[in-house]
């Protein structure tokens, strides 16, 4: 009997999800990537350069830190995978390093990217500066106003930031604009997608670049606990790239429980939420068949979360499959619970997390882990960028 795989098949399907639902104008672009990404990324010289940059430029391996006071409070063993210590402040750069090297190998002269809160835009502008390649970042006009520091960072790094004025003027529209740019510049441009979303091969490609996160955990956990596998792996999910990275080496190991934490916003049923697994239906967004938030008529709706990085109306196809197959447990956390969990982590461990990441720290009461359980939480980003939100929320 064929075992269920939680990885993408050759056509980029995870169960019924994924694939490449793209207009013909994009076919040559994605086809070029589809045919070459596995071959190029497995070349020894690619791997050598990728690993060297992750080590010397990003600062990998990131530590696996035993959070003793948090563990004491929740009566279980909690480890933090410190992706917040990566250069640029989040896991996002693992993927942009991989994709810029791929773009170079393909002879591309120009990079485009979409960004919501600006984290992926900054990570892309960073690697473009490093490689001396032209960079254009699309960002929703509304987000440009809300995320001024990251806009300034991208500009300092030499990128051009273009406002997406269409639709709801947020992440999904920035993604549409980036895809349109790619349609109009099919030959010289590579599109660096920031999450495990979009048409095949993006979800699989981005997951592979992020898989360095779970790859490192094995030996780190062996050293600390004398075992390679944790009992629980917890990550927040917007599009799902940090979750894909920390789940990757455990996908086909059912003894490791995977926990995906979505943003419930003001409450799953409040009408102001980004809990795609709870509210989404099967549909097509940005070239991928997945779960997405939409009207009965199939129009894509605008999600809400206090964290800009989680308010994507869809979820990567890998995660849609993990949800429907029940391989992962999905929990949604409100703005309020997430903010409290962020504050708690700061107070107990001296680490201020990104608000996206804070959601992942609000699930311990729900999970009821045992005292001897080994729990790894992906501390996917640091909270510097969210200081103003913390200030406003807690009236600091």
């Amino acid at each position, binding site marked *: 009997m064929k075992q269920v795989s939680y990885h993408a098949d050759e056509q980029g399907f995870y169960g019924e999800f994924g694939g490449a639902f793209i207009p*013909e104008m994009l076919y040559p672009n994605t086809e070029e990537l589809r045919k070459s990404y596995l071959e190029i990324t497995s070349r020894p010289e690619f791997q050598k350069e990728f690993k060297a940059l992750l080590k010397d430029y990003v600062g990998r391996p990131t530590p696996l830190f035993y959070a003793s006071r948090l563990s004491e409070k929740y009566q279980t063993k909690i480890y933090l995978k410190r992706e917040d210590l990566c250069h640029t402040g989040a896991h996002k750069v693992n993927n942009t390093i991989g994709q810029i090297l791929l773009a170079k190998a393909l002879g591309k002269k120009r990079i485009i990217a979409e960004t919501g809160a600006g984290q992926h835009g900054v990570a892309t502008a960073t690697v473009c500066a490093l490689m001396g390649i032209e960079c254009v970042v699309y960002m929703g006009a509304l987000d440009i106003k809300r995320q001024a520091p990251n806009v300034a960072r991208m500009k300092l790094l030499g990128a051009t930031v273009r406002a997406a004025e269409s639709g709801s003027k947020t992440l999904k529209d920035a993604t*549409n604009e980036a895809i349109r740019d790619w349609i109009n*510049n099919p030959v010289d441009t590579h599109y660096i997608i920031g999450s495990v979303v979009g048409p095949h091969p993006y979800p699989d490609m981005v997951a592979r670049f992020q898989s360095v996160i779970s790859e490192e955990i094995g030996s780190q956990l062996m050293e600390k606990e004398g075992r390679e596998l944790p009992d629980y792996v917890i990550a927040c999910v917007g599009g799902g790239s940090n979750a894909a990275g920390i789940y990757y080496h455990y996908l086909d190991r059912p003894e490791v429980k995977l926990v995906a934490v979505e943003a419930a916003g003001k409450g799953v049923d409040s009408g102001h939420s980004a809990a795609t697994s709870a509210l989404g239906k099967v549909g*097509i967004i940005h*070239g991928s068949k997945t779960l997405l938030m939409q009207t009965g008529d199939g*129009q*894509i709706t605008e999600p809400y979360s206090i964290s800009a990085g989680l308010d994507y109306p869809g979820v990567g196809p890998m995660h849609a499959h993990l949800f429907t197959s029940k391989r992962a447990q999905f929990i949604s956390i409100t703005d309020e619970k997430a903010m409290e969990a962020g504050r708690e982590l700061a107070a107990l461990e001296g680490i201020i997390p990104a608000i996206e990441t804070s959601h992942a720290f609000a699930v311990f009461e729900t999970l009821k882990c045992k005292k001897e359980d080994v729990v790894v939480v992906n501390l996917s980003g640091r909270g510097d960028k969210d200081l103003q939100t913390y200030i406003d929320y807690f009236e600091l």
Partner: protein
Amino acid sequence: MMRIQKTLKNKEALLSIYATAGYPQLNDTVEVLKQLQASGVDMIEIGLPFSDPLADGPTIQESSTTALENGMSTEVLFKQLEGIREHIHIPLIIMGYFNPVLQYGVEAFCQKCQAIGIDGIILPDLPLEIYQREYQDIFERYGLSMIFLITPQTSDERIRAIEAASSSFIYMVSSASTTGKVNGFSDENRAYFKRIADMHLKVPTVVGFGIADAETFQQATAFSKGAIIGSAFIRHLKQHGVEQIASFIHSLKPSHV
């Protein structure tokens, strides 16, 4: 579905117009169709608006956003088009994106299209392979011709595969672009038109994207069976309203006066 084939057979330099349903006002849809037919248009693509139209430029996206704000939906469009064949005898094609069709239910959608008298469907983000594997039987059962796009980057081999799956015409995208983007055709465009003409495909091609006036219309139809105008028409409609449709059409194709 024979309506499209007959029109293609009997006409030269066929003019097809794309009109967003529910634009400029929700209930303008049928009046726009009537005016287009009366001014001598040969075929119409009715745009089913979508919130995230990837293949379209700003003009059509804006018209889609307006139409959705006006209250347009798949359900409303089907209601508006009930009995349309009492007035409109030229081929009607629905052009939209796959997600709204998926939510309506592919079979229910096809059934409704057949009942109304729709001849063809264009869904740019439903790729050939998935269409053939999962949906071709359904569309054919309801007599709907699926129309596929090709671009200057589409390989000959893939064009042959698209040809084999096409029953009416192939939508030839003039250049690597979203809708409404180019102004005038270059030698490169013309070389592409000629390359495709020289393939002697068993179904005719109709050119779309970048056709805005009599000159580009004439250039496009020199190598193909017809041409589709979308963004330029929407811009005219926005500026001059439904009453002035005929003047726009006549400016494109004086022979239709």
